[in-house]
């Protein structure tokens, strides 16, 4: 084996870095820079229209300012977000921007000197003019490590990443011995962020020591949990951090090629990753003899095809081999025998994104964050009935209450918190009493949920816990690959029982059967999908037993959600007789005026219970109500 030219990788990198920095300097020179967040969530909110408006306006006034497309800064509730950096002003973020506001910003802030404070979301630096993000209550709890670059750099420019410290860890790592790297990752205490929390350093060591060549590295970006979007955001906003982590991991375990497995449902993440790979290759940070060392590594992008079970590592391998994604029995673990029977390291997107920080700053600095058993930070995707939906990165050990009420600013419309669903279809629903639980891998498992990949759906008083259990079971039942009988048929049985519950046809003895089935499915399934499929049912049964009883015994849905157990009704005394809002919006023409008294009546036989009348009825009347059970609707 050739000796690695030890001095050269960092100095070879310095040259690349210098070029990147001069580009970054040029961008942030004396002219204003306008940054538009165009990750998927921004696009769904209309960021591309805003971008077009900004470009049009700049052209109109013949202003040669740079417009940069950046990723997601995590404040998804305020999308589309535009950040303007103008010399003489702090960098200011504007939220809920539409094309008209965007045009105004150009005219008044860029051309004039009026920063349009009425549209400000926050400033990115402390200053005397506008409140900064650091002044937000959530800043006390957030600690951005892997989300730091997201929304601040253009993911389509490798130079932006390099100018912000990127690929330096790779250059450093290539001067270390692989064993040193593994020791450092072990010292950091990093545990896999895909959900199970296996110690990353240990996995690397097993794979490095495993016999067999070649070795493979796979980045698992098959983020299948409905309600989780952390990996999407990272791949869209900062794909190079994952590529760099893969390179370091590949070097440490002695692999020469790797795959990034991304869901096809994330077309933008696929695009950005592909572009990142191409750019890294161009700068010789990927390919043969990286940075002049004798380490060669290649990464291919593989698109998943929409099967939830492929997030499970053995199923993912089967799908890479061109087969149907059915898991197989472990051991041997993939680290010993994986893709094509060779040692294969599989790490989650976030796990790999952490690597450059661990190599760059040392394992100890990472280990100083977090709790005893879970080190570092955790990234959560906050969604559901919380005010500030979006991404949050907090140190392990932060409590659920802090995440939901301080970072997320509590429940929308002043409603009451009911539960938080963590860990997707494998996790569970935790009630208010569990809110002071510090979040780490072990505490959540003890409470009956699971860390999972980090999706957090907040539920309020309007959400039915039986329905959410049924929803998750419907999901796992549909996504079960069918290999294990208990998972294939057991989930179907459970789903049938829950279906009956939500229709008010359940029997109380079915509850025992649910428990029994849940135990059997857990015991009789090979992979995580089946082993954890009953969790949503078990946790809701444990914490929200009263709701199950109301469904079964009274045919009533306390949260007024199950469609078979509710009816919409217009209270005649409250109905403003001259208003036709509900009649106009009803999608099935089920509402009409009373022939003589003119208040509105819902034809229950026609009603599809879509709730449009409830939202359209002006709040000062609030004449439309939901009733459960439906028999409460007065007959004439």
């Amino acid at each position: 084996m050739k000796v690695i030219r030890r001095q050269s990788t960092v100095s070879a990198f310095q040259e690349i870095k210098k070029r990147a920095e001069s580009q970054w300097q040029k961008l942030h020179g004396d002219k204003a820079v306008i940054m538009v967040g165009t990750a998927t969530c921004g696009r769904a909110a209309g960021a591309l229209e805003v971008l077009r408006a900004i470009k049009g306006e700049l052209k109109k006034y013949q202003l040669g300012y740079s417009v940069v497309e950046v990723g997601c800064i995590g404040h998804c509730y305020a999308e589309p977000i535009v950040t303007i950096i103008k010399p003489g002003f702090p960098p200011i973020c504007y939220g809920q921007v539409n094309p008209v506001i965007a045009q105004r910003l150009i005219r008044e802030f860029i051309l004039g000197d009026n920063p349009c404070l009425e549209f400000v979301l926050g400033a990115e630096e402390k200053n005397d003019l506008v409140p900064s993000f650091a002044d937000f209550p959530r800043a006390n709890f957030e600690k951005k490590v892997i989300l730091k670059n997201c929304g601040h750099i253009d993911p389509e420019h490798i130079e932006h990443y390099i100018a912000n410290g990127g690929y330096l860890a790779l250059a450093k790592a290539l001067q270390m011995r692989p064993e040193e790297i593994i020791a450092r990752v072990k010292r950091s205490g990093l545990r896999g962020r895909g959900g199970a929390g296996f110690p990353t350093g240990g996995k690397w060591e097993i794979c490095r020591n495993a016999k067999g060549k070649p070795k493979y590295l796979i980045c698992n970006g098959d983020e299948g949990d409905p309600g989780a979007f952390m990996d999407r955001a990272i791949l869209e906003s900062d794909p190079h951090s994952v590529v760099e982590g893969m390179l370091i991991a590949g070097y440490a375990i002695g692999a020469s090629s790797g795959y990034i497995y991304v869901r096809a449902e994330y077309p933008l993440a696929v695009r950005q990753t592909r572009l990142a790979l191409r750019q890294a290759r161009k700068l010789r940070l990927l390919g043969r003899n990286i940075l002049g060392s004798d380490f060669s590594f290649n990464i291919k992008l593989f698109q998943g095809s929409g099967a939830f079970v492929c997030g499970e590592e053995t199923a993912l391998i089967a799908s890479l081999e061109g087969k149907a994604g059915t898991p197989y029995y472990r051991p041997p673990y993939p680290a010993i025998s994986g893709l094509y029977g060779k040692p294969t390291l599989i790490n989650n997107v976030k796990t790999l994104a952490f690597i450059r920080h661990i190599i760059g700053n040392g394992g100890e600095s990472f280990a100083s964050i977090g709790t005893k058993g879970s080190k570092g930070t955790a990234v959560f995707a906050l969604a559901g009935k919380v005010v500030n939906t979006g991404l949050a990165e907090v140190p392990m050990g932060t409590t659920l209450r802090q995440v939901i009420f301080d970072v997320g600013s509590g429940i929308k419309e002043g409603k009451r918190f009911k539960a938080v669903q963590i860990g997707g279809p494998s996790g569970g629903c935790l009630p208010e009493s569990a809110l002071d639980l510090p979040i780490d891998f072990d505490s959540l498992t003890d409470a009956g949920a699971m860390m999972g990949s980090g999706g957090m759906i907040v539920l309020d008083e309007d959400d039915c816990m039986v329905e959410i259990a049924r929803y998750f079971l419907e999901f796992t039942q549909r996504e079960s690959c069918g290999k294990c009988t208990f998972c294939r048929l057991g989930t179907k049985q459970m789903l049938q029982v829950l279906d009956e519950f939500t229709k008010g046809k359940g029997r109380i003895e079915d509850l025992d059967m649910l428990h029994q089935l849940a135990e059997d499915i857990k015991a009789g399934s090979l992979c995580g999908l089946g082993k954890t499929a009953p969790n949503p049912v078990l946790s809701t049964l444990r914490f929200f037993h009263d709701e199950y009883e109301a469904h079964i015994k009274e045919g009533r849905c306390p949260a007024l959600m199950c469609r078979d157990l509710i009816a919409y009704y217009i209270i005649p005394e409250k109905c403003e007789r001259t208003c036709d809002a509900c009649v106009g919006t009803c999608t099935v023409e089920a509402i009409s005026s009373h022939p003589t008294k003119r208040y509105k009546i819902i034809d229950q036989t026609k009603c599809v219970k879509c709730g449009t009348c409830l939202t359209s009825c002006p709040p000062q009347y609030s004449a439309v109500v939901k009733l459960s059970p439906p028999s409460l609707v007065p007959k004439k």
Partner: protein
Amino acid sequence: MTEEQAKLRKQARRVLHRFGKKRGNLIPILQQVQGKLGYLPREAMLEVARFLDIPEVDVYSVVTFYNQFRLQPPGRHSIRVCLGTACHMKGGYITLDAWKRRLSIDRGQTTADREFDLDTVACVGCCVMAPVTVVDNKPQGKVEPTKVDGILLSFKLEKKKQ
């Protein structure tokens, strides 16, 4: 072989020559073929099996295992209703019902005039915009029954303009 079948085979072959004859390429091949034809007709699957020298049933098994692959020709506009957790809790199932009602088709089907095809997707990761419907590959946020009507109307107006 009919003319139509021959044409499909030829189109499939045009994609195939870019790939090596490795079984591991099966899924990328199918994705590209579907990208070109819009769906995976029997002829294309036969052609893929012959190219990789694997049993035809293996190709069919993979095609039917993964949600991404479709055996029916798509409509001009694709409607994908997101049924992720956040979308479900905010009424994604109600939105799906609205689409079904308006288009008079079930999920996985295409309208008789081949204008629209309707399907569901597990989660597109835009949970903050729930309930989401992906219309022609563009995720649209807060799609409730009234917005369903609005989207359909805009398609109708566009068609009239042409």
